[in-house]
């Protein structure tokens, strides 16, 4: 099943670039959901010859939460909060893409020594994991809206998931479920916070909260 893993890795890269290149909020959320869907398939592909009911169940729960529940929550939040449906970046979309390409190079460079430590499933898995984490950070850093920060956080979590899958020797999914639970809680907290911020200040642009720094 190696080729399929490579295909998924390439698709993840493309999803990351699409995330950086789009100006629409709904596309962002869609992309995160698509990424999660791809990731749900990864453990199944890796253990294709020894599929168990438990593995399938965990993968299913993961996919449902990451690809359906969380995007639905985000979409609802975006709709209820109103405002524009643009992502409102600090740096232009073209520049974001260029930085993204640079980050991919950095990931490849960093992955060199890491590959020796990981298991040799696919040469692309570790650079893609690093790249996804960095893209998540880039989205958090370079986008104004609070909701895009939540999106960035989810993307970062996707990257951590890939990393875990590539490295974990046994029971990788159990670790992942723990992380997932954290993410779920975090997203709820963020959603609530965003909701309250927008109610208090009539907007959710984090850059306009800078007066609160002291």
């Amino acid at each position, binding site marked *: 099943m190696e080729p399929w893993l490579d295909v998924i890795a390439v698709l993840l890269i493309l999803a990351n670039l699409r995330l950086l290149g789009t100006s629409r909020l709904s596309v962002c959320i869609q992309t995160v959901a698509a990424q999660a869907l791809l990731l749900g398939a990864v453990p199944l592909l890796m253990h294709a010859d020894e599929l168990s009911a438990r593995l399938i169940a965990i993968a299913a729960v993961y996919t449902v939460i990451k690809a359906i529940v969380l995007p639905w929550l985000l979409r609802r939040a975006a709709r209820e909060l109103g405002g524009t449906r643009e992502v409102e970046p600090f740096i232009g979309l073209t520049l974001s893409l260029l930085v993204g390409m640079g980050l991919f190079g950095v990931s490849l460079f*960093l992955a060199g020594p*890491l590959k020796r430590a990981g298991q040799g499933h696919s040469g692309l898995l570790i650079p893609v994991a690093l790249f996804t984490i960095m893209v998540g950070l880039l989205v958090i850093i370079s*986008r104004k809206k609070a909701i895009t920060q939540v999106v960035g956080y989810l993307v970062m979590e996707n990257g951590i998931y890939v990393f875990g899958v590539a490295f974990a020797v046994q029971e990788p999914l159990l670790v992942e479920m723990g992380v997932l639970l954290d993410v779920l809680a975090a997203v709820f907290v963020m959603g609530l916070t965003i909701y309250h911020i927008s109610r208090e200040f009539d907007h959710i642009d984090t850059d306009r909260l800078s007066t609160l720094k002291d």
Partner: protein
Amino acid sequence: MSLYVAGLIVLLVGGAAALVAGRRPLANTLGALTAVAGGLLTLVSSAATLAGGAGAQWDLMRPWAMPGGSLHLGMDELSAFFAICISLISVLAAIYGRTYLADQQGRRHLGASWLFYNVLLASMLGVVASRNALLFLVAWELMSLSSFLLVMFDDKQPGVVSAGWTYLVAAHLGTAFLLVLFLLLGSSGSLEFSDLAAGPNLAGVCFVLALIGFGTKAGLVPLHVWLPEAHPAAPSHVSAVMSGVMIKTGIYGLLRILMLLGTPAIWWGYVLIGLGAISGVLGVLFALAQHDLKRLLAYHSVENIGIIVLGLGLGVLGAATNQPAMAVLGFAGGLLHVFNHAIFKSLLFLGAGSVAHAAGTRDLESLGGLLKRMPTTGATFLIGSAAIAGLPPLNGFVSELLIYLGAFGSAAARAGVTVYGAVAVILALGLIGGLALACFAKAFGIVFLGEPRTAAAAGAHESPAAMRWPMVVLAGLCIAIGLGCPLVAEALRPTVYAVAGALGLSVESDSPANEGMALVRRVLPYISLVAGALLVMIGGAGLLRWRLLRGRAVEPGLTWDCGYAAPTPRMQYTASSFADPILKVFRRLIRQQRQVHPPEGLLPAEASLHTHAQDPFTEGGYRPAFLAVMWLSGQVRRLQGGRNQVYVLYIALALLVLLVWKLGL
């Protein structure tokens, strides 16, 4: 041992009890009483240790949950000597302080003030008894913090808050150097004093670190800037303790580290002599230029620390070049001066407190004629002034004489390079002595002699008995040490030998170190004799005056007034004009600012002279440095832009750098 620990416990419990008593008058009594009781316990205990020889030394070790730390207390000759100084002065200052604070009773939270006072005493006693570096540093910090809080007592007065902050910053900068010092010394893993040792080639670095760290507390130039700010700001009994004994913990620390480092290098001696000479001369010059009585006294502390360090420098030089007689005399002079300065400086601060209490001001130009109004304060202040100026038959003379003896002995023996050090000590001591005499002629003359310059000074009244007695006791000690100097030197011998022995000199009974002590034994009885004769003569003169005046009326009259019929007190010498001829010579050195309007024409109408002495180290060194730090902090503040995204960027960049670094790319 149990007495000492009991004393510490009494101090801490008493402080806590005073805090509970709060604003009630009981707090004042309770705090002072426990300070006196605790101080007496530790005084008795440490005196017994010093008198009892090696058998009376003790060592107490309890485990402590702190990593590397242990509750390890101990008492040897050096610790006992400093503990005696601390306990003695603290007890007398506490008695004085109770009455000094009495008019604040019920209005201010005296419980807190006494808590800090007792904690200050306990932490000073803890510093000299600690045998573990961590415990030492904890006690050291407690000492800095409690004295900082005591300085802040009158925080409504202008200038007190900034003085407190200056002190706090200086104290912590000093502690930073001590932290590095103990990390270097404790590189073997254990922080017990007995295990501390400097690594190869690190002894010099350790010495410099100790000199800066402890020198800040002791007030060596150029690290002295906190001293003239903090000491005048504190209540007078606290100034007496801070100036009399707290700064001596710096000397204790320096000596302790020297003893840990073993045989010193020659340049350590030269550095100590150089710093001591600079501190002594500049300290007394700055003092001469002051108009505030307590500020003047604070600068004199800088001067006297300089004298002490001159003595230590001579001792270190002697130890490094194996000249035991010179070393023993240097250490003996330095240590005796620690004790003497503790006595007369606290006496003078208590006197200054009485003056400030009675006249409501510490400004020399507003005082005058107080000797008639406050005879006891005046007489004891005179004795203290004569003692600090190093005049016989008082104690200051004895300690300076010992240092002179050591220096002259070395200079006369023409023993190689140390001659330069010895000559430098002699020159510096001579200059310091003369200037100190001028300075105290000014301080005593302006404050106590002549006519009152203001109505407040004219209305001054003598302090209550409880404030006078501690001063009388201290003045009595000044005379007693002057008279009984052979006995005092004998009592000091174990401490001196312990220091000299730890610095690599042989102090067996037939070794050359005893030459120094033998010289002391030969010379001091004469000093004692001359002092006694001098006292008898002074007493005789007083008796003669009394006999001659008996049965005659004494009435005040005008002095010869140049035919001017309406003299006013403003025609007297002022403090500035008295000091001006001397300061003119040194004006370049101390950067005194003068505004002179000399009398002009045949019938001059107006003339004036304003002098203002700023500390060039504060103005030229520290203020620009701290302004630069402030500017830099302002620049760094830009990093805190208030944007979440930027903060995440910082974290991401830091993590990326760490990742690259850890992967070894």
